[in-house]
């Protein structure tokens, strides 16, 4: 018996040795520490997996929402401009223009908590505490008419909340519902009973970006008529001719460049440069030296309007204070931004903003 058994064993061993290297561990990486997993694994699932202990009530949620969310989503979660509408839309999903909100569309409350806690507010993600997230979630349930104003949401009662559209989703069925009908021998001749005609033209909508000549943006230039293109700048011309005197004191170009990067944190809401318009926040051309709350056409908070009426002017000092702690510097203003903690970031941003004339 021993011989054949040994042979079998030997074959088994050989098979193991010959197995592809991929099946073996390489021993790379290191163990993830529990506190690291806790810091990064913030996900919350419909069955409550990942939910952290805490609670928040509707009224607190309303306050936090007003401070951190309303500048885009509106005070009542109705959505400003084209920012997402979070409330309403009840029963609209079969309409020509369905309104997909937390109340009308989202199947799971866990998704609201997960997204607010991990990814909101826009431009200041991961600044909402667990309790604030419960409060905001409670407020969103309230604003959708799903709970009363004395409701308190916590990890204890989280799974009791039923979302109205929880049953409104089904798993992709294209394989059975569509593929059989579209898996056919392709027709090659006489595929339509009559010659088709044009029924709609995109050109009539005029919503495509255009080049200066009115053609769709990016239209290929003529291959036979050379466009008038400036000759490539020669080496000598690159040396600046005696430039016009710098307006005021010259600003360190490196600082300005650094400030341009910092400005990315602001660019979601504020525009600068040629043609800049008011957006979620006022446009910032010429902000240095301008009285607070003085950009035409922008609807400021009462707090900021008051500051402007009181004579406050945006200069390096006031901007620095405001950017360091927007809510502390001017309480109850509506800018939903946590602030720039590093003094060098603020200095760079102010230098950058100083480059844009009114």
């Amino acid at each position, binding site marked *: 018996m021993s011989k054949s058994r040994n042979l079998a064993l030997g074959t088994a061993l050989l098979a193991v040795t010959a197995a592809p290297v991929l099946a073996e561990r390489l021993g790379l990486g290191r163990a993830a520490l529990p506190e690291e997993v806790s810091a990064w694994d913030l996900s*919350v699932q419909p*069955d409550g997996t990942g939910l952290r202990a805490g609670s928040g009530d509707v009224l607190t949620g309303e306050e936090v929402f007003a401070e951190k969310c309303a500048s885009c989503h509106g005070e009542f979660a109705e959505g400003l401009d084209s920012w997402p509408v979070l409330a309403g839309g009840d029963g609209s*999903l079969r309409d020509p223009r369905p309104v997909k909100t937390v109340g009308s569309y989202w199947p799971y409350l866990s*998704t609201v908590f997960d997204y607010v806690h991990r990814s909101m507010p826009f431009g200041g993600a991961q600044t909402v505490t667990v309790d604030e997230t419960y409060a905001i979630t409670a407020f969103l349930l309230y604003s959708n008419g799903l709970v009363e104003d004395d409701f308190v949401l916590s990890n204890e009662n989280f799974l009791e909340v039923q979302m109205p559209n929880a049953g409104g989703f089904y798993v992709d069925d294209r394989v059975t519902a569509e593929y059989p009908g579209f898996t056919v021998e392709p027709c090659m001749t006489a595929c339509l009973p009559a010659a088709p005609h044009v029924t709609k033209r995109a050109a009539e909508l005029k919503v495509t970006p255009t080049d200066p000549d009115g053609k769709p943006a990016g*239209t290929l230039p003529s291959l036979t008529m050379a466009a008038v293109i400036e000759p490539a700048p020669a080496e000598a011309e690159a040396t600046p001719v005696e430039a016009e005197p710098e307006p005021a004191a010259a600003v360190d170009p490196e600082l300005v460049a650094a400030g341009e990067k910092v400005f990315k944190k602001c660019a979601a809401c504020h525009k600068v440069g040629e043609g800049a318009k008011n957006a979620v926040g006022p446009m910032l051309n010429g902000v240095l030296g301008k009285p607070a709350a003085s950009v035409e056409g922008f609807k400021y908070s009462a707090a900021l309007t008051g500051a402007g009426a009181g004579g406050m002017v945006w200069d390096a000092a006031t901007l620095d204070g405001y950017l360091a702690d927007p809510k502390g510097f001017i309480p109850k203003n509506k800018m939903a931004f946590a602030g720039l903690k590093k003094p060098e970031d603020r200095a760079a941003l102010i230098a950058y903003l100083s480059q844009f004339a009114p």
Partner: protein
Amino acid sequence: MADEPTSRRAFLRQTAAAGAGLVATAAALRAEGADPLIAQVQDYASAFGAPVDATPYGLPIRHEAHVVRRNVEWLTESPVSSINFTPIHALEGTITPQGCAFERHHSGAIELNKQDYRLMINGLVDRPLVFTFADLMRFPRRVLTSFCECAANGGMEWNGAQLEGAQFTHGMIHNMEYTGIPLRVLLEEAGVQPAGKWIYVEGHDASSNGRSIPLDKAMDDVLVAFFANGEALRMEHGYPVRLVVPGWEGNMWVKWVRRIGIYANAVESREETSKYTDLMPDGRARKWTWTMDAKSVVTSPSPQAPIQHGPGPMVITGLAWSGNGKIARVDVSTDGGVTWTPARLSGDVKPKALTRFHLDYIWDGSEMLLQARATDETGYVQPTKAALRAIRGVNSVYHNNGIQTWWVKVDGEVENVEIA
């Protein structure tokens, strides 16, 4: 039929029919005597050109400055949570250069360096692990080419023709050759427990853009990639590490990957419930619509690539792709779908990758209703928009793979139209 030239006899027959137009064009070119570009010595044929190192990392010549990604500003409220479009009307072949490949960010492209990069694998695994970029470079690698198409590509066209140009109607797509680690290898390093049926992948950026992927797919062909088209990923494509999920919607191709969690169930994140679900006419929605079905589009001629040369020989070209495998054939119609002609598939046909097609054609100068229709190796034939609308209505936003119609007019200008 890949790489078979169109029948020469058919080509000559068409040429004869359109011969008059051809002669006229040739005569016009000859009319004015010797071409000074030939008869006279040009500066560039006599003096020095640019030295080496003039641009240590080169950009396209300035004459191609129009070939850039473009944004449609009214589509989104903020450019950091937005999308732009690949200039597919101006590109050829199949590989999309990174510098003009469409971008989709949910909270802006972040600047992360290799030294600070960390990847965590946790959840239902034997060994929760953290990898540095240096660790990742020591795992076995593979190379694959795959298209990445936003699920919303063509989403503006559900209600009817809206945007003028293949870049805007079909440009939420790119196709790159990636080098990276099969995700299976990393998951085996951590040891997925039997209860683990889903992975959840999220990014380092503020949006995190987390998406759930069933374990079967994760163990099949998903790549944790760090090179694209032979060089490091560009920042806007997820430098230093992104996920490549062949054949599945672009939103799942998480950029700046920071964590892969293994769970028993899907997380049902915001990106896979409130977005990237397909609302149907009955008010219910399809979820987990991951696969990008077979699709094609004529990239030239198209509204941004009109016919400039008048009647005669021309090249009709475009792209075809399928998330279910290889493209088997592409047919082209010039009469709005009454009759179809097989196009030539050019170059290598790879599964779940862009495939280039060409049709050598003699244009008689009359109007065309130009269409392409892809068939993939499963036998699925790209449907008409009308056929899709009959099933899905017009509010499903995503996964519009219907046949596109370009109206080519007698002057060679091209419009995006709907026909019936």
